[in-house]
């Protein structure tokens, strides 16, 4: 009887160990954000966000930050009358994220920016549709990316993921995310991918919320909630400032 009980306990322990180890193999990637909410207050000028985590020793980690998808309306420039460059054709891109950033680990960046991994502008363009369809999507999208990179909301940060000390068969990683001031209030997704031999082994996602607080929140609420009153107040304050400065200067020059 004792033997049977001993055998049963051993069996249970072994199966438990197997379950634990296999679930660890399914979730080898761990990611943590320093904060899941960022506040935009009066003197806000963009910020950074620390992301840390761990991944098996033999894998790489890449991060993707993307924001609310929307339809963007663009004007394509073209020549008018043969020599004048002007905004000519209306084009819109559907399903375009407002923010798109990729952070790759050290090493050749091309290895990570592939359609298989779903990272990079080429992969992103697959989800986007152009209207009218007669327009050259690849060209328009590439130009749009240039425009967004210029304002800082689209970026490929090569080699920005750094690895820490290894701990057994896991190693730590850390990334400093760049949050430009042009990144508007809203909800964003931060996705981490564990990559080995060009394939995704695991992935995990966290949400980041950006919110207006204090004076900016109050002004935005007023501008959209009571637009007429807001316009009148803006004018009254402008006139008052003009009168005050005007009177101050009169006082300064009153001696002559």
């Amino acid at each position, binding site marked *: 009887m004792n033997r049977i009980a001993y055998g049963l306990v051993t069996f249970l322990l072994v199966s438990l160990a197997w379950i634990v180890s296999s679930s660890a193999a399914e979730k080898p990637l761990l990611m943590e954000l320093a904060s899941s909410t960022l506040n935009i207050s009066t003197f*806000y000028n963009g910020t950074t966000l620390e992301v840390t985590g761990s991944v098996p020793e033999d894998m790489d980690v890449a991060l993707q930050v993307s924001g609310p998808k929307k339809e963007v309306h663009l004007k394509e420039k073209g020549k008018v009358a043969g020599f004048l*460059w002007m905004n000519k054709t209306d084009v819109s891109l559907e399903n375009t994220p407002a923010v798109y950033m990729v952070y790759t680990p050290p090493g050749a960046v091309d290895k990570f920016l592939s359609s298989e991994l779903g990272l990079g502008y080429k992969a992103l363009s697959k989800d986007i549709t152009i209207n009218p369809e007669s327009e050259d999507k690849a060209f328009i999208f590439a130009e749009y990316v240039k425009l967004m990179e210029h304002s800082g909301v689209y970026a490929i940060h090569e080699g920005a993921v750094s690895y820490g000390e290894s701990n057994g068969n896991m190693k730590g990683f850390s990334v400093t995310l760049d949050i430009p001031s042009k990144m508007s209030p809203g909800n964003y997704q931060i996705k981490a991918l564990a990559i080995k031999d060009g394939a995704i082994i695991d992935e995990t996602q966290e949400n980041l919320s950006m919110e207006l607080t204090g004076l900016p929140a109050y002004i935005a609420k007023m501008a959209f909630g009571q637009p*007429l009153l807001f316009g009148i107040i*803006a004018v009254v304050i*402008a*006139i008052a400032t003009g009168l005050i400065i005007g009177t101050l200067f009169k006082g300064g020059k009153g001696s002559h």
Partner: protein
Amino acid sequence: MLHMYLPIAGNSVNVFLILGLGGFVGLLSGIFGVGGGFLMTPLLMMFGIPPTVAAASDSNQIVGASTSGTLAHMRLGNVDIPMGIMLLIGGVAGGTIGVQVIKLLKAMGNADFLIAITYVIMLGGVGGYMFWESLQGLKKEKNSPATEEKPVTEKNAPQKSLMQKLPLQFKFAKSGCEISMLLPVIFGILVGILAAIMGVGGGFIMVPVMVYLLRMPMHVVVGTSLFQILFTCINVTVMQSYSNHTVDFVLAVLLLLGSTIGAQVGTAVSKRLKADQLKIMLASLVLLVCVKMTAGLLMTPTIMVALKGGH
């Protein structure tokens, strides 16, 4: 460096940079009687502010600067209020007509092309003529310093008699002329239409119209123009805020802190300059903007798409 977040523009700016920019444009409006929107809007766009927000917040700022400037010019006796009111009535009517004209042009297609061409030709024509005319004036003055005041030339005689035939004759004391009240209203309408089509306040068209068509003294032109701009911009600010939510209050306050002081300094500078000197400086500024616009139209853009939403 101190930065502030602009909740409507959705970006942050360097506080000192915007104060300085406001100061510079305020200086120009105090000297020349122009709002400076034609300079301010593109500069703000360079700092990552959307064009619609830049234009609307700038008009809010001009309210402050022109209040400050009008006050300073009023003290110097440079504001012809009846003339300003007549121009304003015309300007508002013209602006309303202009908005309809744009709708019509847009329906016909090629509106952008017509707007750009009108803009460049107006800037080039007005700037070129003012430059040439004030250069002649400065040269004459050098050769014969005795003839300070220009006598009314013979060329104006027929034009004048036609003006006198119009009804509602009124003596505009500050401007030193007796003309029909309809005349400034008509010119105001024309400027208002052009300003609405080109999407600018129109100070730099209004100033030459007052100088060359209404023959007002240059210093009174500057003061009266500011008086008129004040009311135009109050209207634009309230309308923009109400229908488009594009007035960024933080941006406007930063700009107007600089520009109200700039306008006072500008008025003091304006007082020290002769009419021809003022005209030639304004003409150079207008020509500079014209050259920049033309270059922008001729050079191949670095990015072939732009976000829709400008005017």
